[in-house]
C-alpha cells in the first residue's frame, strides 16, 4: 500500500547512456514533482505537473524530460547522462497545487560511472 513509489531504487550506468525513472502515487493527488538531492544533501525542485500540465520547470538541462501520462504517474527521462547527474532523485505528490504538504517516494540513487 505504498503511497508514492519510484522505480528503480538504484540505477548504475555509464556516461552517455539514456535512462528513465518511474513514479506512481496512489493517494489520489493531482500534483506531482521531481526533486534532486545532490552530494551536499540539498533538495531542489526540478519539475512539477498538475493534472498532466507542466507548472514548474526549473533551470534544468534539456537532457531531462518529464512525462506525465496521467495524474497518478510522473516519469523522468534523462538523455546523455553526465557525471554531474549522479544524485538521489525524489518523486513527490500533493493534493492541489497551493500550500499543501508533499508526500515523497523513497528516492532513486543514480550513479554515473
Amino acid at each position, binding site marked *: 500500500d505504498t503511497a*508514492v513509489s519510484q522505480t528503480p531504487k538504484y540505477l548504475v550506468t555509464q556516461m552517455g547512456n539514456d535512462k528513465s525513472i518511474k513514479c506512481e502515487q496512489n493517494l489520489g493527488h493531482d*500534483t506531482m*514533482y521531481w526533486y534532486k538531492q545532490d552530494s*551536499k*544533501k*540539498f*533538495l*531542489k*525542485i526540478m519539475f*512539477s505537473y498538475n493534472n498532466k500540465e507542466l*507548472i*514548474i520547470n*526549473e533551470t534544468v538541462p534539456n537532457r531531462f524530460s518529464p512525462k506525465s501520462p496521467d495524474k497518478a504517474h510522473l516519469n523522468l527521462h534523462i538523455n546523455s547522462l553526465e557525471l554531474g547527474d549522479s544524485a538521489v532523485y*525524489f518523486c*513527490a505528490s500533493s493534493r492541489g*497545487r*497551493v*500550500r499543501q*504538504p*508533499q*508526500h*515523497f*517516494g*523513497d*528516492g532513486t540513487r543514480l550513479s554515473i560511472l
Partner: protein
Amino acid sequence: DQQVKQNSPSLSVQEGRISILNCDYTNSMFDYFLWYKKYPAEGPTFLISISSIKDKNEDGRFTVFLNKSAKHLSLHIVPSQPGDSAVYFCASYGGATNKLIFGTGTLLAVQP
C-alpha cells in the same frame, strides 16, 4: 542564494529531553512552513506545518513556533525518543509560485 537556512548541521540530545531545531528564512513572501523528517534511504516524511497567520502549531510531541519579525521558526520535540533520530528539513512555500524551498537539514541524534 540560500533562502531557507538551517545553521546547525547536527544536534545531540538525551532521551526524554527537549530537542529544538532551528530554521531561518530570508524571503518575507514565504507564508507557509513545513517540517520533514528523513531516515537514511527513505524519502522525507511530512511532520507538521504552520501558516504565517499563526505563531504556534502543536501535534502530539511536536510543536512548531514561528517568529515572523525575526524570520525564524523552530521545531520542538518533547520528550525526545531514540526513534526521533533522523535528518530534519525545514521547508517554505511563498510568493507567486508553488515551489517548496528546503533547508539543508539538521541531523538529530537522540541518545538512550
